[in-house]
């Protein structure tokens, strides 16, 4: 059985993380776009109203304002639904945030298909791809609420732009308060040698479940939590490929351009091994309960199991 510590939404890590360290960062400013309660930025806003800016439904302005704040020495954290933050504002993020080398932190919540009932218009499945392609940008996808809080705190010390992807839905908490998190370093959660499973976000939990199922069939897997997609931890990817000789990547994101692609980019020029991709296969989502959608779009543990079996056969 995979140990879980209840279920929580990773977005909760944002408000909790900022509140925990706000006093240590006097230049911290939060920028919201009519969604502070749902992103949890509201927790910070209530305690520090003088350091919170609500721009209304104007995401482009939110990003531009954050850039300006950063250029006069503030540490701006902008958060709204990821679809509108990094989807709508991609060009501002490229031109004004990244090209300017500003210290803007972008926290996209409600990412992925698990946003559920709101449907495909709100389910961004392309954000990892469009953020990781940007020079100077760092991209992090925490696996649960506890890890998210630690990452939110740690990213404040990073120089330059950062994008953190968080989920709306209550999802299993698989890490605990004492686990160490280092941005830029993946973590082996379970070791094995038949197949390496490299995952981020909610798919880390599904990978752990898949690993259990496979163990019962005599297949041993290594599960890697690769929360930082950029800069990517090449060492852990190469080590996993050398040990297992095949890889399955798992992400709640299009298979094109996301975590799987980032892993493949490393392996193809260092230690090529056969790789399978679990993710959304060039489709939009739809309305439905998160679990129903994960099933329909093949993001569940059993989908990982079948990809692992098929990739092992191709070794």
């Amino acid at each position: 059985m995979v140990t879980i510590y209840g279920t929580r939404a990773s977005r909760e890590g944002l408000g909790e993380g900022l509140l925990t360290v706000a006093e240590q960062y006097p230049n911290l400013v939060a920028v919201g776009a009519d969604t502070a309660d749902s992103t949890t930025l509201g927790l910070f806003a209530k305690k520090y109203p003088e350091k919170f800016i609500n721009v209304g439904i104007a995401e482009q302005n939110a990003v531009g304002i954050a850039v300006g704040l950063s250029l006069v020495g503030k540490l701006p954290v902008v958060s709204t639904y990821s679809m509108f933050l990094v989807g709508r504002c991609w060009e501002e993020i490229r031109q004004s945030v990244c090209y300017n080398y500003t210290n803007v932190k972008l926290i996209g919540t409600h990412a992925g298909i698990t946003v559920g009932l709101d449907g495909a218009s709100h389910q961004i499945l392309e954000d990892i791809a469009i953020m990781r392609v940007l020079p100077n940008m760092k991209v992090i996808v925490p696996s649960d609420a506890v890890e998210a809080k630690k990452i939110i705190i740690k990213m404040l010390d990073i120089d330059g732009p950062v994008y953190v992807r968080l989920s709306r839905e209550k999802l299993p908490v698989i890490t605990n308060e004492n686990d160490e998190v280092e941005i830029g370093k993946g973590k082996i959660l379970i070791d094995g040698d038949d197949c390496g499973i490299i995952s981020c976000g909610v798919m880390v939990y599904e990978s752990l479940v898949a690993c259990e199922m496979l163990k019962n069939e005599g297949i041993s897997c290594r599960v890697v939590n690769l929360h930082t997609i950029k800069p990517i931890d090449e060492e852990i990817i190469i080590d996993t490929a050398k040990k297992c000789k095949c890889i399955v990547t798992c992400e709640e994101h299009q298979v094109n351009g996301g975590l799987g692609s980032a892993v493949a980019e490393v392996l193809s020029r260092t230690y090529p091994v056969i790789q399978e991709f679990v993710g959304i296969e060039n489709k939009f989502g739809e309305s439905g309960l998160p679990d129903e959608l994960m099933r329909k779009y093949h993001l569940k543990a059993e989908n990982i199991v079948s990809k692992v079996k098929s990739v092992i056969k191709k070794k």
Partner: protein
Amino acid sequence: MPPSYEELKKLCTQFRKTIIEIIYEAKSGHPGGSLSLVEILTTLYYLHLNHDPKNPYWEERDRVVLSKGHGCPALYTVLAELGYFPKEELFKLRKLGSILQGHPVRVLNSDNSNLRYVPGIEVSTGSLGYGLSIAVGMCIGFKMDNKPNKVYTICSDGEHQEGSTWEAIMFAGVKKLDNLIEILDYNKLQQETKIDESVDISPLKEKYLAFNWQVYEVDGHSIEQLDSILTQAKQFQGKPKVIIAHTVKGKGVSFMENNVDWHGKAPDEKLKQLAIKEIVEKG
């Protein structure tokens, strides 16, 4: 002692000449929207801006955001004359390795391990419609810290067709950001057509008033008028301020004036000579 209007007018002639020379040297660039900016930038930098070219990152300085980044040959020319960087740099405009990119860059970061900051350039711009939001963010930051710094942003008329510009205008008006002074280079032409032949942006004054801004209108080629209005705008409290500066695209070179063909191309040797002759004679 600040320079006299006469001295500034002479400088403007010199700047126009340099703009033509460096765009010719680069074999590309935007002469029309640079020439329309000359008196605006000259009056701002020489008579109003709180700055120190010897100390470009002085904390107490006012900020300038050139939202219409394509007008940078004018900005570079003024900054070089003020001593932000050597004048030789001007002739490297748009060339490989130059700090003076085709559109302004605050920090050259093509090599992340070797960031090169460009003195005098506060924000990288070039894509229209972003500068005003950035200026608004700067203004909020200064207000949070009760600092007196002012933020001047120079916008084009054309970028008022961008929705993002209006997001910033609405926000600044509602928040009464009176440390914000926008100078709108209203030269009435965009890349392909006259503005009122594509999607007209007028009446600008009424629009800004409706968004709770203090509005001034001036002849954007009159240093006297610009000086007087900037003085008033700096003192006015309680609202963001916009100075609608009526200008002529390509000002000073007859064949470039009011001609969309000169939005974004360099003159050849013959036309360069002709342009400079005209500028010098008029000056």
